[in-house]
């Protein structure tokens, strides 16, 4: 896995400069709880060759809000929605409630709870 | 479409694929993964099977004099066979038979007692440890 660091300000620019839907296959958005911070990963793979998976990642505080990449990758709303539900992070324009309901346990995968 | 129609007619004369299941038994292949069987004569009480079991279907309860009792819950068991592979005395002490586990209905509540037993077993281990520690001290 090739990891490339980015941050919440540059995220959209980096992804839009990098992502071309004809070459790259977007895998998913993944969240990892680092204990006091969150790591959000955006995973890609090139079509039709055997190179390794490319991962753009950023670290963020729990309370901060990061931009959404739906405008660049239209199918990313599912992956982002899952991260929002499971970790309780905030992503712009991505509402809660894709997988969990209002009355279910909030942010189940976060470590602090 | 014509061939399918002729097939439908010819199927009328053929034997059905399905069988009247509970009345006519189905044939199981060799080495079918069934229930777990235990023989306490050969067991060395290493607890390895208990540790590897994913659904905690094997529990050893310990008594104050140190001897253990094997408990097995067929309704919780997923027949994965991890316990058999972990067992140092496979075949003698613990083995998997080809017998199919029976289904249970929720009215029987097969697992309710089991969860109580699970707690008791945990408690019994701690009690035994405490007794052992007390003996060492004295």
């Amino acid at each position, binding site marked *: 896995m090739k990891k490339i660091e980015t941050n919440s300000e540059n995220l959209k620019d980096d992804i839009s400069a990098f992502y071309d839907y004809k070459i790259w296959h977007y895998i998913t958005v993944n969240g990892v709880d680092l204990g006091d911070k969150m790591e959000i990963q955006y995973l890609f793979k090139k079509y*039709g060759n055997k190179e390794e998976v490319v991962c753009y990642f950023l670290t963020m505080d729990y309370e901060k809000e990061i931009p959404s990449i739906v405008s660049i990758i239209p199918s990313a709303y599912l992956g982002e929605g899952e991260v929002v539900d499971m970790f309780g992070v905030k992503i712009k324009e991505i509402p809660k409630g894709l997988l969990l309901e209002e009355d279910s346990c909030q942010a189940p995968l976060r470590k602090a709870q | 479409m014509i061939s399918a129609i002729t097939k439908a007619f010819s199927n009328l004369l053929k034997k059905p694929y399905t069988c009247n299941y509970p009345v006519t038994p189905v044939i199981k292949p060799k080495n079918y993964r069934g229930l777990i069987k235990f023989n306490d004569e050969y067991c060395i009480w290493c607890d390895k099977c208990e540790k590897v079991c994913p659904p905690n279907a094997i529990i050893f309860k310990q008594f104050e004099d140190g001897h253990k009792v094997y408990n097995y819950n067929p309704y919780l068991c997923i027949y994965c066979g991890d316990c058999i592979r972990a067992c140092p005395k496979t075949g003698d002490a613990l083995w998997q038979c080809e017998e199919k586990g029976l289904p249970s209905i929720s009215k029987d509540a097969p697992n309710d007692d089991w969860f109580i037993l699970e707690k008791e077993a945990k408690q019994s281990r701690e009690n035994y440890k405490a007794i052992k520690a007390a003996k060492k001290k004295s």
Partner: protein
Amino acid sequence: MKKTINIPYGSQHIALLEPVRFQFETQNEKIVGVKADIGYVHRGIEKACTSTFEYKQIPSVVARVCGLCAITHSLTYVMAVEQIIDVNVSEKAKYLRMLMVELDRIHSHMLCLSHTAENAGYEALFMQIMADREIIMDIQEAISGNRVQFDFVCIGGVNRDITDEIVKFIIKSLNELQPKIEDIFDMFENNWSLSLKYKGIGAITKENASIYNALGPLARAAGLETDVRAESDYYPYEKIGYKMILEQTGDIYGRNRVRLREILSSIDMIKNILCDIPEGNIIEKVKGKPNGESVARLEAPRGEIFYYLKGVKQAMLDRVRTKTPTFSGIPAMVEIFKGQEYGDVPAILASFDPCMSCTAK
């Protein structure tokens, strides 16, 4: 003004065996808007994997995410773990794993085909394919000892060896299956009512397939060359005669053709695997605790399956991320539904082969 009727499709519906809800806005039975709602059966398996079970027990846990792709889930997990703790699996175990994955692909594709037929109102074909599918189920039962939950792979190899008797049985059964598949192929190709139902219905272009990240047979039917089997060299797929199967039409008919041709090619691959299974151990000893990150991908019957693991030198893993094929396929599905007739919806939906127990794991 045309009247708009909102038709809920699911989460409890006769043609939809999965807990997902599609809300169709229709005008004269033509669909003008679609909303998808997933997450009816979220079971928190990712949470359970990081809080209840140790990493050696997880292959049995993730296998229960889904019954149809049981082997692919545990296998992908196992591949990811083996990368972290540096276990080299023997060639023989790799061959046996490939064998099981291909068998799994055959039976899953057959199930999907039968559902496509049933949801197009062709009950007899459904029964026929289901009856033929029993051959594969019997093979799987003979190899692993169970019909659905194989628990065949474990960290470091596979659990059961294959005997000459079973090899003979598999080859005999596959020879029996091949003409039956060709027969079904003929039905899908030439039946008058099915061609009305399938040809040109539910089509997606190659462009849209790659914009919306379609996967597996859905993408390959539109001509998008994506197949994990060709994109990784973990398994020697070239050696056993793997060919990527592509169709250009992108409609239900194309998807059915992709599935049928993949079944035929899988049968050939299985025969090749059985011919040259190398000698060796089936299982390696595993020591140590996972430390670090790893990802693993595998081509499940429905498309790419993806696992991300993170371990911190403990018996319990820090993070297990499962990405299932249907989960990433939903945007493409929603796109396809727009502009279709409501009468075609069940067949289109079945041809996606959706697996919601995977999606809401």
